[in-house]
């Protein structure tokens, strides 16, 4: 860090002490790694979408801890809300199609 950047740092009542920040960053990195593994290991699609949403939230916190509040906002809205929503809509469509397919099959058998 250059001296000019040091003077830019503002100390407020919300400033986290430097040592604690490192602990926070490390803890969030571990949580994100665990979260990503949990997403991959969840097999039921709907549950996987919910876990993915939680993972998006963790990722947003990670970006915040690494001082990227703009990316945090993007990740929070897109990763934790919009992406899971789009996936859920896709799943709903697929299920509708499956159910229709089953019903058509039954109808064909009745004939």
């Amino acid at each position, binding site marked *: *860090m*250059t001296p*000019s*950047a040091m003077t*830019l740092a503002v100390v407020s009542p919300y400033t986290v002490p430097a040592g604690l920040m490192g602990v926070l960053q490390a803890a969030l990195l571990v949580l994100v790694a665990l979260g990503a593994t949990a997403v991959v290991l969840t097999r039921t699609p709907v549950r996987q979408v919910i876990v993915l949403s939680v993972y998006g939230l963790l990722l947003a916190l990670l970006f915040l801890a690494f001082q990227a*509040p*703009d990316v945090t*906002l*993007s990740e929070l*809205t*897109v990763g934790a*809300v*919009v992406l899971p*929503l*789009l996936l859920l*809509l*896709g799943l*709903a*469509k697929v299920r*509708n*199609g499956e*159910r*229709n397919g089953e*019903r*058509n099959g039954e109808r064909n058998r009745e004939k």
Partner: protein
Amino acid sequence: MTPRLRRWVFLAAMAGLAAFYAWGLRGLPGFGRYPGPYGDIINRIAVRQTNATGVVSAINFEYRGFDTLGEEFILFAAAAGIATVLRRLRGEREGSARDEAAGRDVPPTSDAVRQLALILTGPALVMGWYLASHAQTSPSGGFQGGVVLATAFILIYLAGQFIAFERFSPVDVTDAVEAVGAGAFAAIGLAAVAMGLSFLSNFLGLGTVPGAVSSSGTIALISFFVGLEVAAAFVLIVSELLDQALLVRGSR
């Protein structure tokens, strides 16, 4: 390809990837160390040059405005593509959710969900508007604000019905807002050219107080229009997909 051969190809590729990865990591600067001069220069001059204290926005909408224009049109093209691919085809009809589950109605939205969605709609709207219009003073911007604005409309869907969602965001209006948002960005850039400046250069008054809401000239203006574009694009994408989820492919 036999499974055995496939495993060997995989292992070879894996080893190659791991080697390149390790090699790449060795070349990286140390954790938290920034080697380039560009960021330091921007940090020194950005606030003085643009009067925007949201330096990220100053970079997004001014120094690298041309990149952002391209990014915005990625979303524009994606929304247009989804609208085209998911258009109503011949032989498809709108089906109510009722006849999907024979013998029973769709469970009604619970009061808790309805209440919560109603309570959150207002704050989401204000928050989105704030984020989209305060790019010059905070690390927000049109993109984040636009997505939050879009979630306000999605909450209307959760609180009410699809019909209400469509009434609050009719597709024609959404289309128009998206086009205006995307077009305005390019238009602001071209307006600078018309004045004899270079594309997307800041031709509006920067204000006297850095960090004031009225400061930063075109940065705030572009961010606002990006917010409109992004909100409309996301509402459009979600409503198209909702439409699809409720759509029944004709069996005949």
